[in-house]
């Protein structure tokens, strides 16, 4: 560890925040769905990959930002439909059914991605240049900074939505107390579907942010999903704030740990596993979660 300079650490922290931003977004999507429908959406990553592929195809016909927003809209609409058609009938089903269905969906999206776009790794454009920028003598990648910025902006927008709008309040209410929400006139079913749509759109953004760095292929999200789960669990599965903090923290810690030769970058994945297991065993509510009796 001592062989590294301050510059090395600074770079790893920033790039850690960048990847952490992506984990945070995915973790946020997972938490939103878990809070509202009590389902751990194992398909979150694959849905993100699939929508990123859609963006990829769109970008052959239009420029980046229109394709970006159109993809988010498609992701939103698709997930709303998915929730109404596939998830709604099984909302009250036992755990095994929920796990199997979301896993089945994960396989379907993964398979569809490979089937439609092939198994090769595709190049995905980034709106940010890859030139480095120098701050205090340390070189940072504009792309990393751009990813951090987009992540933060999205999180901010979501926070504004949930805290300050009538819709956001209704979404929160539906997740917290669906029965009372119905008495107040909220169509809880559609709120939950909206939650899925929102989560899918967030996932799409996460996918589009990460694809330029990792290359776009149908297995892109597998490991990312694990890190997102680790972040969500670390932050507390019911806490959106926890998801964001957990994601950023996780990204930075993973990068710093990987600097340690014994671990190296190839063991990042088991470190993710270790975090999940440790948190679940020691403090299942994570850093920010509350003790809630759920139908887990």
């Amino acid at each position: 560890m001592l062989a590294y300079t301050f510059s090395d650490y600074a770079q790893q922290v920033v790039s850690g925040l960048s990847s952490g931003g992506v984990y945070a977004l995915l973790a946020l999507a997972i938490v939103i769905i878990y809070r509202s429908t009590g389902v751990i959406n194992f398909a979150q990553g694959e849905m993100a990959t699939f929508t990123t592929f859609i963006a990829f195809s769109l970008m052959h016909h239009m420029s980046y930002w229109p394709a970006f927003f159109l993809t988010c809209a498609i992701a939103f609409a698709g997930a709303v439909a998915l929730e109404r058609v596939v998830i709604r009938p099984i909302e009250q089903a036992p755990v095994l059914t929920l796990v199997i269905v979301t896993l089945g969906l994960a396989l379907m999206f993964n398979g569809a991605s490979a089937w439609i776009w092939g198994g090769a790794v595709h190049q995905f454009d980034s709106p940010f240049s890859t030139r480095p920028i120098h701050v205090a003598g340390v070189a940072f990648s504009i792309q990393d900074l751009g990813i951090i910025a987009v992540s933060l902006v999205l999180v901010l927008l979501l926070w504004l939505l949930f805290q300050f709008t009538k819709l956001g309040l209704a979404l929160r209410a539906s997740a917290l107390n669906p029965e009372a929400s119905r008495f107040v006139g909220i169509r809880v079913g559609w709120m939950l579907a909206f939650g899925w749509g929102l989560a899918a759109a967030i996932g799409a953004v996460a996918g589009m942010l990460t694809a330029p760095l990792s290359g776009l292929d149908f297995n892109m999200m597998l490991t990312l999903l694990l890190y997102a789960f680790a972040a969500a669990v670390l932050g507390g599965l019911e806490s959106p704030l926890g998801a964001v903090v957990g994601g950023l923290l996780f990204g930075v810690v993973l990068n710093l740990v990987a600097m340690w030769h014994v671990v190296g970058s190839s063991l990042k994945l088991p470190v993710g596993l270790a975090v999940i297991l440790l948190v679940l065993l020691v403090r299942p509510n994570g850093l920010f979660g509350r003790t809630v009796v759920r139908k887990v």
Partner: protein
Amino acid sequence: MRAWAARGGMLAAGVVLFFLLPHVVSDFRLFELARVGQYFIAMLGLYVLTTYTGQVSIGHGAFMAIGGYTTGVLVYHRHWEDWRTLPVAALVAGVAGLLFGLPALRLRGLYLALATFAMAVSVPAIIKKWESLTGGSTGLLFATFHTNRWYYDVTWAAAGVLVVLAWIVLASPVGRTWRALRDSEVAAASFGIWVPLYKTLAFGISAAYAGLAGGILVILSLGANPNSFPIQLSIYLLVGVAIGAFASIPGILVGAAFVEYVQVYAPKWVSDSPGIPTFAFGAALVLAAFAATAVSALTIRWQTGLKRGPAKETS
């Protein structure tokens, strides 16, 4: 007792088929059938775990990897005869299952699924890192190979033994305790049953089955390779459990055959894309889950943990 008569009948049919098939079916089919057997064994263990103790695992591929690499290491480094390593593979994986099952007791439902998922995704990475033992990314290649008939015989003989073993365990006090647990953990505990022991035991036993299946997989693949044990494998095992929920052992057989043959035929019938088997399995899982929810009133085994009146015997 009727249950045993049904089992006896099934076993007899199985034995007959076992000896009959090699004469009816082409040689290469026997190899495919061996692969079906490999899935079957792992799915059987997972089925018992899920259906009898309600613990959902999407990580049994990891136990297959542990068993598989036990076989790989013993054959490659210590020059054991391949089939002799199978009991050891089962044992090592079983112990790993016990070790995992113990802390896993604290996790419920979705959290347990999440933990097993994490385990399954990370195991290939750990295998690749531990190069001295496992040969890293290239894996361990075997020098000897056998006839297809041999693979078929070994796999299905093992499967037969393991099915009978499962029946014995299920009929024993252990199995009865599991059924009591499934109907109500709280009630079982109040009867003085030490719940943790039985739940961990179930994990260990199912892991042992998976480990043995992993050993067979390695033998059939002529070597151990980390790419043989991706997360998809753990999910494919669930396909067997999902279908098995409808018809117990025959159901699991169908599930195992489905998993193997979709992988074989999709490239031939549809296209080469790796996505098609994956997509098909995903669709199968979703459809099976929906069908199960639809017939939930009739299928006790699917609805673990819900009160259903007196526990029935399974075949």
